[in-house]
């Protein structure tokens, strides 16, 4: 009776032991010198394997940095602290980079943007795009959460038909930018407090029929900007963050309430938003 249990245990245990010992010996005999910096850098990287750097994971980026193929500040998620620590390992000075965050450039929530039909298909933006999306505006957020699924940091949720990035959770990896079939998500400087939340390049009159908060290209912001930081082209305003001083004049002047503003309180971004419905009356 004992044999039924003991022999199999001994055989499998023996096999495992023999292979284990053989592999341990082989590991010693066939040892290859590896670059110590690779492991040191890999430990410094965030380890989320988000792929924002263009490599398949943190280990691959560490290898590329050690070889000199990638720069020490290639990890946008780790930011300046990680870049400096890696710079120390590599013995080089690291350029400081501006931390960025993702921003969805659409304001057409709820009934602000006119719907053309009720979509009941697959919950994926690319799939819904076959029918052109449920909004009349062919530039607006489809709101089915393809970017939500793409975000490795769980920082995006769809609120009232438009995806919203939680700036506290966003690490700036840019995974969502590539996932959006409409190209609505932009990386803007983390400290940017104004942004044009629209991508519509339709003429003003057309935009007006599609969305109450779309950019109509009226150029009021362009004329009023004291530092010439806003430019309107193709009926769409765009802020140049190198020139923007955050004075908020454009936000106040915008007749469509397309330009959003935020303030930074205790290191956190707090969005100021007066709902346009109230102001319209």
């Amino acid at each position, binding site marked *: 009776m004992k044999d039924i249990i003991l022999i199999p245990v001994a*055989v*499998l245990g023996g096999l495992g032991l023999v292979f284990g010992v053989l592999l341990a010996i*082989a590991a010693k005999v066939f*040892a290859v010198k590896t670059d110590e910096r690779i492991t040191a850098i890999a430990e410094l990287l965030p380890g989320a394997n988000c792929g924002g750097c263009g490599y398949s994971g943190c280990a691959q980026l560490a290898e590329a940095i050690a070889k000199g193929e990638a720069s020490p500040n290639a990890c946008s998620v780790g930011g300046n602290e990680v870049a400096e620590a890696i710079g120390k390992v590599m013995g080089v000075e690291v350029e400081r980079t501006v931390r960025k965050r993702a921003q969805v450039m659409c304001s057409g929530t709820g009934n602000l943007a006119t719907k053309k039909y009720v979509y009941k298909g697959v919950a994926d933006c690319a799939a819904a795009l076959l029918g052109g999306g449920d909004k009349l505006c062919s530039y607006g957020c489809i709101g089915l959460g393809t970017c939500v699924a793409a975000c490795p940091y769980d920082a995006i949720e769809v609120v009232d038909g438009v995806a919203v990035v939680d700036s506290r959770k966003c690490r700036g990896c840019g995974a969502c930018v590539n996932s959006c079939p409409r190209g609505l998500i932009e990386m803007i400087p983390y400290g940017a407090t104004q942004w044009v939340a629209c991508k519509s390049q339709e003429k003003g009159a057309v935009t007006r029929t599609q969305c109450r908060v779309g950019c109509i290209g009226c150029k009021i912001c362009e004329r009023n900007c004291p530092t010439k930081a806003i430019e309107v082209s193709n009926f769409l305003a765009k802020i140049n963050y190198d020139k923007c001083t955050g004075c908020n004049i454009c936000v106040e002047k915008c007749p469509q309430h397309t330009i959003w503003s935020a303030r930074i309180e205790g290191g956190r971004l707090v969005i100021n938003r007066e709902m346009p419905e109230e102001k319209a009356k």
Partner: protein
Amino acid sequence: MSFTDVLLIMFGVILVENFIFSKFLGICPFLGVSEKPATALGMGMAVIFVITIASGTTWAVYYLLLEPLGLEYLRTVAFILVIAALVQFIEMFLRRFVPALYSAMGIYLPLITTNCAVLGTALLNIQNRYNFITSVCFGFAAATGFTLAIVIFAGLRARLVEAEMPRAFRGFPITLIAAGLLAMAFAGFSGISFT
């Protein structure tokens, strides 16, 4: 078993009983590592290498160790152990002595550890009661069939990248459809009887 029998078994497993298209073994690397024909070929070579050696080793473990002790039922567990150790060993060996081949195979080698095609071959060798030579030949041919399939498929996928299609089909959906069509094409071989 005569030489012709072995040859017939080999051709049968490459075309008619292809591991991927008729036995559904090794689907994971088939879909995962078939984006470029070159890497697909690398994966195929790694699989040929490991399956051929694993066929011989598992045959020896089964007939020299498990069967005499009446422990046939342990073969799945024992084979997994053998294959895992073997792949580890081959990886270390290549890394030390053939670094070029090691970097060419890259991540594919460790991936093979959990590849059901390898375990499948080992178990089929036992199930079909092949002798040592036939087992090794069967393993080699099965892996060759796998390589054939993955390289053809990688060629298809390389063209699919350029093709225009609705966005919802792009990427993985069209890959699965293409795999299905290729499997249907291979089903044409089922009319040929080698054995």
